[in-house]
């Protein structure tokens, strides 16, 4: 019997005999996530983190102290009853664990994988506080993923109420939209999702790579929507194919949820950005993911530069994903150039860790000044400046200041810009009367209602580039408000 299994049996015995004391729980070692070897995974696109075994999951779950105040729950944007589902896992009641999670989150297999837990639920965890190390908190996300994965291939199809005769249009098919569609459909409305791309799922399919979030998981959730009777119309660009106004006035939709995301890529506005070999992370990841450039020549048609030496600019999840994708597409050297220090990187800790393991060369406190080209207009290098941290700026982070005369050149043939995205402008431009803020995000009230009657919005188009779980939370809030609004109209 493995050591883990022996430990679990001992703990179970102890529990039967009279329960576990906090000291018993603190003594359980935090369970590491099984993962593909770094050297191996660099050359495949399969998922890196492979998920807990049953024994590991139960051991990890037993580390939870069942705090009365459950501070972890405060850290979760959708207020999952964490200690209850964790207890269910400790007891081997995986179905029940999943049912508890699903009360608040429709996509546990996704959130368990991509939530920035270390700044949400796990940051608040008492166990982590005790060890003064958020890495040693109860691994809530991994347990959430375990519960979802254990449920097997076919997630349950939620009950749908009797038809109300009301029609709801959901624009975009990202996580916020999936939740909004499910919740309004559950109330008995006729629901149609309109997606501009040829595949539904939003950033979860065209942005976040396969090795972090397998497409099959997202597809399963889309299939559940279809089984609930939600109609999904792809290649439909709202604002162009039909406007929001037309959907409501001519096509009979009684309410609309706008979840079109923040997809407009920012560039640095430095010399050389038009050179061949400079990509936005969106373009690079879309070509790699949605159009499967990694299969180029084997059925996929989308070309992507064959890069040997790549510089990725930025320090968020998008930058990590681009850097690790470049490695998988065959780059020999990948630099990650970030102008602040590692502490300020907005990426999930696990991704930073995985990127380093895979050999991404972190160049912190550096920033490009210009991109150099050769005679054919291809990228031939990048001139950078070194930075140091100065006084804190308005965001409270110490401002990076360039060091004069510190120029040096990185030898690269590809530059991927991952410094952020702005709001998608199309809906704003084509929907008169829809209030936007100065960055082009849609303005909503606490119920996610916009300035137009019957029109609700959520996710990145409201929050700016945010997270999957926040988008889902808004999708849920908006759906509740839509259901209330439509009931009042009856």
């Amino acid at each position, binding site marked *: 019997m493995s050591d883990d299994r022996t430990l679990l049996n001992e703990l179970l015995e102890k529990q039967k005999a009279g329960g576990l004391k906090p000291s018993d729980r603190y003594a359980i070692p935090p369970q590491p996530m099984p993962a593909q070897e770094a050297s191996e995974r660099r050359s495949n696109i399969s998922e890196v983190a492979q998920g807990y075994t049953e024994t590991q999951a139960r051991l990890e779950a037993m580390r939870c102290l069942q705090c009365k105040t459950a501070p972890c729950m405060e850290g979760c944007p959708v207020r999952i009853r964490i200690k209850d589902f964790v207890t269910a896992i400790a007891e081997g009641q995986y179905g029940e664990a999943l049912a508890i999670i699903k009360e608040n989150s429709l996509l546990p297999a996704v959130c368990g994988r991509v939530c920035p837990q270390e700044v949400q639920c796990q940051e608040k965890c008492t166990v982590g506080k005790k060890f003064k190390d958020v890495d040693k908190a109860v691994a809530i996300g991994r347990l959430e993923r375990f519960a979802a994965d254990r449920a097997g291939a076919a997630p349950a199809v939620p009950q749908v109420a009797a038809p109300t005769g009301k029609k709801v249009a959901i624009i975009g098919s990202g996580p916020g939209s999936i939740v909004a569609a499910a919740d309004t459909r559950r109330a008995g409305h006729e629901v149609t999702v309109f997606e501009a791309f040829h595949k539904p799922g939003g950033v979860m399919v065209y942005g976040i790579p396969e090795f972090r979030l397998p497409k099959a998981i997202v597809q399963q959730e889309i299939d559940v929507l279809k089984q609930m009777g939600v109609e999904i119309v792809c*290649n439909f660009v709202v604002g162009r194919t*039909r406007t929001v106004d037309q959907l409501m006035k001519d096509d009979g939709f009684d309410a609309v949820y706008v979840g079109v995301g923040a997809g407009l890529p920012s560039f640095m506005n430095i010399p050389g950005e*038009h*050179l061949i070999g400079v990509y936005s992370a969106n373009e690079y990841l*879309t070509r790699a993911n949605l159009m499967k450039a990694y299969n*180029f*020549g084997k059925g996929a048609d989308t070309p992507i*530069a064959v890069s040997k030496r790549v510089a990725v600019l930025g320090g968020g999840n998008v930058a990590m994903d681009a850097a690790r994708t470049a490695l998988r597409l065959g780059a020999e050297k990948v630099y990650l150039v970030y102008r602040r220090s590692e502490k300020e990187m907005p990426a999930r800790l696990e991704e930073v860790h995985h990127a380093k393991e895979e050999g991404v060369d972190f160049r912190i406190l550096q920033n490009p000044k210009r991109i150099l080209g050769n005679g054919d207009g291809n990228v031939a290098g990048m001139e950078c400046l070194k930075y140091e941290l100065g006084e804190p700026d308005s965001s409270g982070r110490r401002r990076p200041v360039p060091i004069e005369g510190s120029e040096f050149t990185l030898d690269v043939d590809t530059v991927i810009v991952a410094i952020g995205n702005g709001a998608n402008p199309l809906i704003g431009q084509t929907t008169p009367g829809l209030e936007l803020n100065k960055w082009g995000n849609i303005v909503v009230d606490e119920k996610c209602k916009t300035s137009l009657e019957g029109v609700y919005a959520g996710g990145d188009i409201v929050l700016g580039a945010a997270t999957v779980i926040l988008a889902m939370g808004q999708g849920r809030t908006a759906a509740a408000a839509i259901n209330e609004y439509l009931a009042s109209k009856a």
Partner: protein
Amino acid sequence: MSHRIVSKKQLSEHVFTMEVEAPLVAQARRPGQFVIVGVSDDYGERIPLTIAGADTAKGTIRLIWQRVGKSTSEMADLKIGETLGYVAGPLGKPTHIENFGTVVCIGGGIGNAPLLPIARGMKEAGNTVISILGARTKELVILEDEFAAFSDELIVVTDDGSHGRKALVTEPLAEICGRDPKPALAVAIGPAIMMKFCCETTRKFAVPTQVSLNTIMVDGTGMCGGCRVEVGGQTKFVCVDGPEFDGHEVNFDIMMKRLSAYRNLEQKAHEAYKQHRCRIGLND
């Protein structure tokens, strides 16, 4: 939604036209707009093509395309009754059409296709329309009859003199710009190099000039930045800010370089698809 091909014709050695079912697009489209087409649903490139016309009663749109690479060849191999994987649109901003007075419309090669609905729209708005159609050789002059049907004046030029005048489009364009009164507007659509020289010609006469840019595109909805161009010193996205721009402000040199970005890889894909390869006029 199924996009059935209801008619298809070959216009020249490498140029084809089809009418395909896309009722919502047919209804919403305006001159100057385009669609993104996918031959299949899963793998495959997203191909931007101008909407050359539409029949709202039949619910069809008309596409005219040149076989240049793998995806456009696959399209050329489709038969009447077969379907396209998807048709998304209409995309881009519609052309600003009003009665300007006299408008000179210059089409180069396959550029005649996107030019057609715009030139016709200008005529319908009451303009005097002078059309200049150019191509390398006789076989490559497309849509001449359709332009002849509404143009007040039609000038055809070929590089080798096999049809119409032996000249580049810029020659008659300069003559027309030199007339009194000069045209109120020029619209030039064709290979980037042609548009560049048309703009240099009209600049001398201070004739405002619109061009429609055919950059590389991925999503066509403003999400990737792959279609970016420099206009008036600023970065613009062709799919959402265009495809039409003030030609006197466009940096064509950068655009031409970016267009060649994927040439090598695409040639590989195309050669794998078919032994022969063919590219006329579109970017060189």
